[in-house]
């Protein structure tokens, strides 16, 4: 399969979707999603530690234009077996430091954990994540989703229908 055609819906790993996840720290969210991706065979055992180490050094919190903020933790490709996206929505925000200003503590309620392989092969999915982040309405709907089916319906708004 040509991985350039993979979009966000293709790459969302159902086993790594944690809705209303009761986390108290960014680390807990990353560990939970990374463990699910490992169990699903998407990433190596080293992925969780690598993602945490990278988050500490180069944080991924993003202040968005609406009231809900997000983070996109990820790490180097060597820890990934096949690309996948994990998703967590949080009833209570956890702090991720701001990507552009690591001294800024961002309260985050939406987390996309990205397991990426070749730099250019997931352009489409990454663009779709950015499209979501730029749309406060879609972000709210995503955080309000109660089932995987609802999540997929919200994501379908930004993923062009399959040709």
């Amino acid at each position, binding site marked *: 399969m040509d991985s350039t055609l993979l979009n966000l819906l293709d790459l969302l790993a159902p086993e790594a979707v944690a809705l209303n996840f009761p986390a108290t720290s960014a680390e807990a969210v990353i560990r939970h999603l990374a463990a699910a991706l490992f169990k699903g065979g998407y990433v190596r055992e080293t992925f969780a530690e690598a993602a945490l180490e*990278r988050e500490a*050094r*180069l944080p*991924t919190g*993003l*202040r*968005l*234009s609406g009231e809900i903020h997000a983070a*996109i933790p*990820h*790490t*180097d*490709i060597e820890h990934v077996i096949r690309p996948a996206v994990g998703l967590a929505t949080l009833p209570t925000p956890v702090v991720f430091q701001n*990507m*552009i*200003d*690591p001294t800024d503590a961002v309260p985050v309620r939406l987390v996309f954990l*990205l397991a*990426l392989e070749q*730099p*250019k092969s*997931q*352009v489409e999915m*990454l*663009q779709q*994540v*950015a499209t979501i*982040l*730029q*749309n406060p309405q879609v972000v709210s709907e995503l955080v309000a989703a109660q089932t995987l089916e609802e999540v997929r319906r919200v994501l379908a708004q930004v993923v062009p229908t399959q040709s």
Partner: protein
Amino acid sequence: MSKPKVVLVACGTAIATSTVVAHAIEEEMKKRGINITTRQCKATEVPSLAADADLIVTTTPLPSNLGKPVIQTLAFLTGIGKEEVLRQIEEILKQ
């Protein structure tokens, strides 16, 4: 056609964020008729690659004194201030 301007796009791992940013800048500059090529790199690689660049766009903090114009922005991820950043990029690349 004139020689394309080189935009160096930096982020933490050179995989995710800079891919989005590079793609967005390429599309927007094409619309404006500005001929560019983008190169992605890790923030730590910028000092060694800056010499060949006309502009550096980064989503993470960079060392200062790179000798090239630097735009630090999350606009291509969050959408906040995107038009203003595009205007700045266009201005620098038209010089």
